[in-house]
């Protein structure tokens, strides 16, 4: 894992003092809420429906056990004993007092964490594949490249007042586990015929009210030009992105309106100019970072078999574990989606337990996933059963990764001041209604947003649900056929919306149509793509 040096630590410590000063000015009435708003937003502090919410950055989703433990302690000390892991691999606390926010940042800084640029119209936390460094299919570990981007984007002087927020993701596998093409810039690290690493740039993806899949604008940027190329992409956006309408201000609209060719030509011209400015960190810096992401000391003699005699364990093993690049090891997903629970929430005790388990069984490391779960990336197969027993006892052993109960949901109207409808109760009801059929249904990614801003990724759900406000009543629209990953597609709306109970029925009916039409172990998505919308519509509205 990346370890701060004195420069990184000073940056974060200085920010804490700056924010303490800003909060003091606000509390003493020297600045108005209007003047304070952009300052708190740059520090991830939002004023929500009931309290302040603080969003803490988890760069590329990687946490040490000490960091995870601190997140649990903060939940106890400053919140109501829990936290909420988000679709951008971050964590949010929903019940924060303004006067305590600087102390939280100070506690975070003790474990090399911060809330810098977790909100505001700037470059946000860079996300990555939750199995980085463990996945058998990766070209290279993407995290050092994401760390390089983290440093470059931190307090970037030119790009702190962009037209709108800006999200980047870096992956290094053909299987996209980070929804890379639904980011403002998605980077896939690739290897060319000469064996050199380069960055394929996908620019202008996003969800929100106008979902777009990012087009590939450059298939191979040499790795020692990746930062310069990013800077060129951002500069064209900062100069020409729309600022007249907040809802048309994301880079996807610029790329769409200019067209991919014109946007790319402008980026290439700016890139050529910026190459003369020597802004690229040297490869020595990348090597320094890479040295901190070397493999942990894997045991080459680790047994490669698992005792699967306990059927509940075997089910969890089949559902929640991913092959590891090293024999004798396996990557484990801890589901934060218990039946009827709040997707992505973890209690302080659960966070501390996961910290302990990461230390004991996963070389001190865990990951947050964009699907709001936690991964222990490097578990010895020989330890798997003991690990599962401890998880199960703590309510963390649900076997539902990528199943219908593994729902992504935004905080919705229970917390968020932008929401039109509640998301959490709908997720809870669907999870309860369909948990018995989960294994029979198999892979099915269900995603719920409580407004068209799409924080719950409903466009990318195999089944997506969008909550809207219809004449003062919450109404839920159903979408089918969305998908993130290498075969990214956007869901299509089925027809008129449903009320809260109606949407739960509609999801159940949808699964019934699928089970009746399924051929040869098809996933829901495969069946939908084969048979189309018609039979689903017929069952829902016929």
């Amino acid at each position, binding site marked *: 894992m990346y370890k701060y*040096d004195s*420069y*990184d630590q*000073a*940056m974060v410590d*200085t920010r804490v003092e*700056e924010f303490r*000063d*800003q909060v003091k*000015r606000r509390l003493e009435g*020297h600045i108005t809420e209007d*003047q304070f708003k*952009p*300052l708190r937003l*740059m520090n991830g502090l939002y004023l929500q429906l009931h309290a302040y919410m603080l969003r803490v950055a988890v760069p590329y989703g990687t946490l040490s056990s000490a960091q995870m433990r601190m997140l649990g302690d903060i939940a106890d000390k400053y919140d109501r004993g829990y936290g909420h892991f988000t679709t951008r691999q971050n964590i949010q606390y929903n019940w924060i007092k303004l006067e305590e926010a600087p102390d939280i940042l100070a506690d975070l800084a003790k474990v090399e964490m911060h809330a810098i640029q977790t909100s505001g*119209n700037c470059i946000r936390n860079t996300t990555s594949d939750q199995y980085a460094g463990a996945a058998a299919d990766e070209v290279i570990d993407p995290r050092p490249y994401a760390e390089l981007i983290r*440093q*470059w984007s*931190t*307090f*970037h*002087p*030119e*790009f*702190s*007042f*962009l*037209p709108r927020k800006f999200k980047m993701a870096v992956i290094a596998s053909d299987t996209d586990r980070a929804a890379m093409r639904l980011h403002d810039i998605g980077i896939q690290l690739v290897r060319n015929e000469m064996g050199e690493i380069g960055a394929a740039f996908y620019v202008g993806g996003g969800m929100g009210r106008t979902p777009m899949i990012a087009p590939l604008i450059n298939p191979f940027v040499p790795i020692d030009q990746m930062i310069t190329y990013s800077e060129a992409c951002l*500069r064209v956006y*900062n*100069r020409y992105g729309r*600022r007249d309408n907040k809802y048309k201000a994301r880079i996807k609209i610029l790329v769409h309106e200019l067209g991919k060719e014109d946007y790319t030509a402008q980026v290439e011209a700016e890139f050529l*100019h910026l190459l003369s*400015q*020597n*802004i690229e*960190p*040297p490869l*020595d*810096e990348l090597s*320094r970072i890479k040295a901190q992401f070397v493999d942990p000391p894997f045991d080459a003699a680790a047994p490669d078999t698992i005792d699967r005699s306990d059927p509940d364990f075997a089910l969890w093993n089949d559902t929640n574990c991913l092959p590891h690049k090293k024999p004798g090891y396996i990557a484990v997903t801890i589901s934060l989606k218990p039946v009827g629970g709040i997707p992505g929430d973890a209690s302080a005790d659960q966070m501390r337990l996961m910290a302990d388990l990461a230390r004991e069984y996963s070389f001190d490391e865990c990951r947050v996933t964009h699907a709001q779960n936690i991964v222990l990336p490097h578990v010895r197969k020989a330890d798997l059963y003991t690990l599962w027993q401890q998880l199960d006892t703590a309510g963390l052993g649900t076997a539902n990764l990528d199943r219908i109960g593994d729902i992504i949901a935004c905080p919705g109207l229970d917390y968020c001041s932008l929401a039109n409808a509640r998301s959490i109760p709908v997720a809870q009801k669907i999870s309860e209604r369909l948990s018995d059929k989960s294994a029979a249904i198999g892979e099915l990614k269900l995603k719920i947003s409580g407004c068209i801003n799409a924080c719950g990724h409903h466009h990318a759900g195999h089944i997506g649900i969008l909550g809207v406000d219809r004449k003062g009543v919450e109404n839920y629209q159903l979408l089918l056929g969305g998908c993130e990953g290498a075969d990214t597609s956007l869901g299509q709306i089925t027809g008129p919306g449903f009320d809260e109970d109606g949407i739960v029925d509609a999801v159940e009916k949808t699964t019934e149509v699928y089970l009746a039409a399924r051929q040869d172990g098809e996933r829901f998505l495969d069946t939908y793509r084969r048979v189309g919308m018609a039979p689903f519509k017929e069952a829902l509205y016929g």
Partner: protein
Amino acid sequence: MAEPQYRFRDDEPVGDPAVTVDSFGDQSNAAAVRIEPGDDARALLPHLERIRLVEVNFPVFGDGRGYSAARILREAGYQGELRAVGDVLVDQVAFLRRCGFDAFAPEVPLNPADAEAAFIRFDNVYQPTIDGRTPIWALRHG
């Protein structure tokens, strides 16, 4: 013309009124120009030699186009005064300085103590820009 509250230059301030970017090319005796957010700073590049003052207007602090305009001018070798005017707030001045601004004329004067702290708060920076500060990666690798 907005008088700067802060000016990090030793030369004599330019007294000429600033003209707009689109009229600047036709006024061969003008030495001061004002950039609005929608203007293309690169339109000034053929005239850099005779420009002594560029005012960049920030009608609202959240419109960050002026940061790119400033860097583009400095990257092209512009040496004259670069003045930020308009809705310039204390928490933007360090970023503006990094993009090449060396004079500040905020619509609402900044609290002097807050501004002085803001200009010098961070000892180091992650990115190189035309302000000449050594980025952290260069400090690491000597």
